[in-house]
């Protein structure tokens, strides 16, 4: 008899959700996590009395996460203490204009009318189009496997309304938005959202243009820090007997006759199971943990061709003053064309300028208990930072970059910042790689353009190793907390179907 029925590698949201669902199916599940805490990119660490979120700072598409909890007989809203975030965000545009988009679609239309009356109709047409797309696509697209052409055909056959929206899949994020909005300020206010899926507006597939609209369905912060969400999955799983072991890195996946046998930990311990769910980067998992000897040449070529997704340096600021902001999320934006140019002129060429754009996440705005009384936390999501800097390294540049960004923010978006910093830490792509063991610090595992999507992304049910399943950002439907939760539901469904 095997030690466990299922071993899950990686206690990110995808790993814990799939583990909990499989435990709910009655299987003996062990989740192995290399770090000292759960959650991966959606996690929180404590330093000097401040609770700081590592990456994710809000939750969109709460209904997808709720579907997962509902499968276990409970609900997202019962298991996680959620704080509604309204407005969705404020943006300080490059010319100093401030815009604020509330959850209400009508109030957002009024705000757009204030800066660009000509685009109010565009907002209404855009909202109608994306609502139709989400109504048709949300469960079909998020919860259906896309392992091969048959799956994709079935997905569209089950949801024929999706065909009406095919133009979204074959254009760019920027192309879709430009169809509805003419005013450059309105376009600028939505320009950073493309990085929520990891690419600049000109390269990101058009269906991601749903993101700015989707925020109006409700966004939430988890009280106590974003780790509350993976902890919610963990709690549900543990009620069903799931075990979680922290500080337990896996070295190899054991395979015998093309069938899963178990895993070998870094300390040499062998743990046996018939099923392994990998919630880590699948390129790394196949090439290093499974081993090239178990893969056909075509699969090896495919895996090696994948580009890791972008990394996002984060600057964590703990402050002894109330920052001059209004909302949980304030976007520091650039005109859409400049955002594209940043990608090609800086990111692709290995430079990281001190004059930054990105998101100021004022988490203590939603939950003051994260910091000592009167103190605040801002997690700054910076512009994408490439792993290999040209002519230098992140470790060499870290302090200089941190200082120059703090100076820049103090002069621009956060007057007085320099005098009120209690703690400032820059987490570079290399730090993310060390902390999360995510290759190159990639936050969405693999890129999310069309040639890395659906049946061209690694299959949720391995084609080459029986008993090996994938969850998380590196399989369909991709990166982000709701999407990796959806991948967990897909993996659990496939295991229920194929592993009786």
């Amino acid at each position, binding site marked *: 008899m095997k030690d466990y029925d299922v071993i899950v590698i990686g206690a990110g949201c995808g790993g814990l959700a799939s583990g909990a669902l499989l435990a709910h199916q009655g299987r003996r599940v062990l989740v192995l996590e290399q770090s000292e805490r759960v959650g991966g990119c959606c996690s929180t660490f404590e330093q000097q009395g401040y609770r700081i979120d590592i990456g994710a700072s809000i939750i969109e598409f709460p209904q997808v996460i709720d579907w997962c909890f509902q499968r276990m007989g409970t609900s997202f809203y019962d298991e996680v203490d959620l704080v509604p975030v309204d407005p969705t965000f404020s943006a300080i545009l490059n010319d100093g204009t401030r815009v604020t988009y509330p959850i209400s679609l009508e109030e957002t239309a009024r705000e757009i009318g204030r800066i660009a009356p000509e685009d109010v109709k565009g907002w209404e047409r855009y909202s109608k189009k994306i609502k139709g797309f989400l109504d048709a696509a949300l469960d079909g697209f998020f919860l259906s496997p896309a392992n091969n052409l048959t799956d994709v055909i079935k997905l569209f056959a089950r949801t024929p309304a999706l065909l009406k929206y095919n133009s979204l899949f074959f254009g*760019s994020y920027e192309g879709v938005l430009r169809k509805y909005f003419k005013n450059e300020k309105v376009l600028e206010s939505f320009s950073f959202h493309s990085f929520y899926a990891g690419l600049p507006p000109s390269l990101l597939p058009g269906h991601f243009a749903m993101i700015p609209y989707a925020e109006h369905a409700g966004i939430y912060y988890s009280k106590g820090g974003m780790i509350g969400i993976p902890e919610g999955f963990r709690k549900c799983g543990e009620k069903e007997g799931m075990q979680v072991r922290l500080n337990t890195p896996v070295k190899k996946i054991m395979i015998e006759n093309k069938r899963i046998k178990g895993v070998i930990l870094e300390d040499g311990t062998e743990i046996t199971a018939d099923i392994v769910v990998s919630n880590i980067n699948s390129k790394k998992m196949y090439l290093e943990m499974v081993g090239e000897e178990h893969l*056909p040449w075509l*699969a090896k070529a495919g*895996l090696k061709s994948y580009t890791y997704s972008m990394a996002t340096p984060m600057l964590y600021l703990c402050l002894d003053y109330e920052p001059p902001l209004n909302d949980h999320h304030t976007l520091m934006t650039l005109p859409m064309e400049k955002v594209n140019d940043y990608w090609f002129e800086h990111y692709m060429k290995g430079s990281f300028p001190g004059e930054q754009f990105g998101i100021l996440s004022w988490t203590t705005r939603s939950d003051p208990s994260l910091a000592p009384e009167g103190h605040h936390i801002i997690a700054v999501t910076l512009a994408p930072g490439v792993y290999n800097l040209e002519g230098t390294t992140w470790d060499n540049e870290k302090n200089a970059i941190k200082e120059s960004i703090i100076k820049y923010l103090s002069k621009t978006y956060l007057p007085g910042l320099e005098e009120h910093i209690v703690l400032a830490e820059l987490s570079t792509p290399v730090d993310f790689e060390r902390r999360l063991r995510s290759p190159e610090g990639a936050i969405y595992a693999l890129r999310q353009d*069309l040639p890395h999507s659906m049946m061209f*992304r690694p299959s949720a049910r391995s084609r080459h190793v029986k008993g090996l399943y994938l969850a998380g950002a590196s399989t369909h439907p991709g990166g982000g907390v709701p999407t990796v939760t959806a991948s967990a539901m897909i993996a659990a469904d496939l295991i229920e179907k194929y592993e009786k």
Partner: protein
Amino acid sequence: MKALIIVAIVTAVLFLLYLVQPKSRRRFIANLLSQVKYLVPRYFT
């Protein structure tokens, strides 16, 4: 020979069409085209 001429003309027309697209769309198309060669191997992952 005739077929080659047709292919050359179609390629030239597509290339000209590509050149007259806005920079943003050219970037989108170029990114897709640069990865076409990987689609078959990626399908088998």
